[in-house]
């Protein structure tokens, strides 16, 4: 079985150990031949993606588990989607993904009020306040991002859980914007991780 790691463009230099590539048009399909399903394999998949991020100008990560019986089968699958893959690669060209999460102290949980109306008013106030906090951060970060993907969190302690597609050269500015925001709101917990290969922006229509 063939295990697909990712698609790439502008791949330079030797691939990592145990990793092969096959090209179809402007698309390099990056694969391996061992198909285990352990935690170790999952981590290796991630490490290969990291290595690709350093060697290619565009990386489209494949979700773990994309398997093909032969290299020819993989090649055929790529050929039949070549244009869409080339477009998807162009969308993430020169970019990395940065993930930002914001949490608030659990004290924001609903409290007993004198009556139902008071309760609803108080809740509305909290919801509006949180929405404002989130949109001010998102606005500041979108200034440095090509695109964003925000998780919808109907019920969570997280106020914001989003990924941003950022040009490599803009990573420093993006990180500085996160730091400024965190400094402005010390009551919030803010985590920024990355750079990741742009898996949240790997949509192939």
């Amino acid at each position, binding site marked *: 079985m063939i295990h697909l790691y990712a698609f790439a463009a502008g791949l330079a230099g030797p691939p990592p150990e145990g990793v092969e590539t096959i090209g179809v048009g402007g698309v390099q399909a990056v694969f391996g031949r061992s198909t285990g399903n352990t935690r170790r394999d999952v981590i290796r998949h991630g*490490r*290969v993606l990291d290595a690709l991020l350093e060697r290619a100008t565009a990386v489209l990560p494949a979700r773990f588990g994309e398997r093909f019986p032969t290299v020819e089968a993989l090649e055929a699958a790529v050929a039949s989607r070549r244009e869409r893959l080339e477009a998807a690669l162009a969308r993430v060209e020169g970019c990395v993904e940065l993930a930002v999460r914001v949490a608030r102290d659990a004290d924001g949980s609903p409290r007993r009020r004198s009556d139902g109306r008071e309760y609803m008013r108080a809740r509305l106030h909290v919801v509006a306040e949180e929405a404002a906090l989130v949109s001010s951060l998102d606005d500041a970060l979108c200034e440095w991002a090509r695109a964003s993907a925000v998780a919808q969190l109907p019920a969570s302690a997280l106020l914001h859980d989003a990924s941003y597609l950022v040009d490599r050269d803009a990573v420093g500015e993006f990180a500085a914007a996160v730091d400024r925001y965190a400094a402005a709101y010390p009551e919030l917990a803010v985590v*920024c991780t990355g750079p990741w290969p742009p898996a949240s922006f790997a949509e192939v229509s």
Partner: protein
Amino acid sequence: MSGAAAKVLSLHGDLGRVTRDEAPRRISADPANVERGLAQLVLTLVELLRQLMERQALHRMEQGTLDDDEIERLGDTFMKLAERMDELKLEFGLRDEDLNLDLGPLGRLV
């Protein structure tokens, strides 16, 4: 193959206040804890529904499509439900963090 590049660009805030002191939660299949595990699952779903419904009601309240009477009754219901949830959590020794199960890929599909 490269090693782990430092992936945490920044970490801000009083993280201690939103963390737990135990390993992440799973649904327990150990017979001695089955009841607690079931309670955890059921209460998680109830809490999720409560929050979803409350959000929807708040949205309608914002839009002005609820009259005062409805707002009062809804608010009263959500408040009482939240209180009952607190009691049940106490009964089963569950904390807020325990009612935050994520279903992995399924969770994301929903």
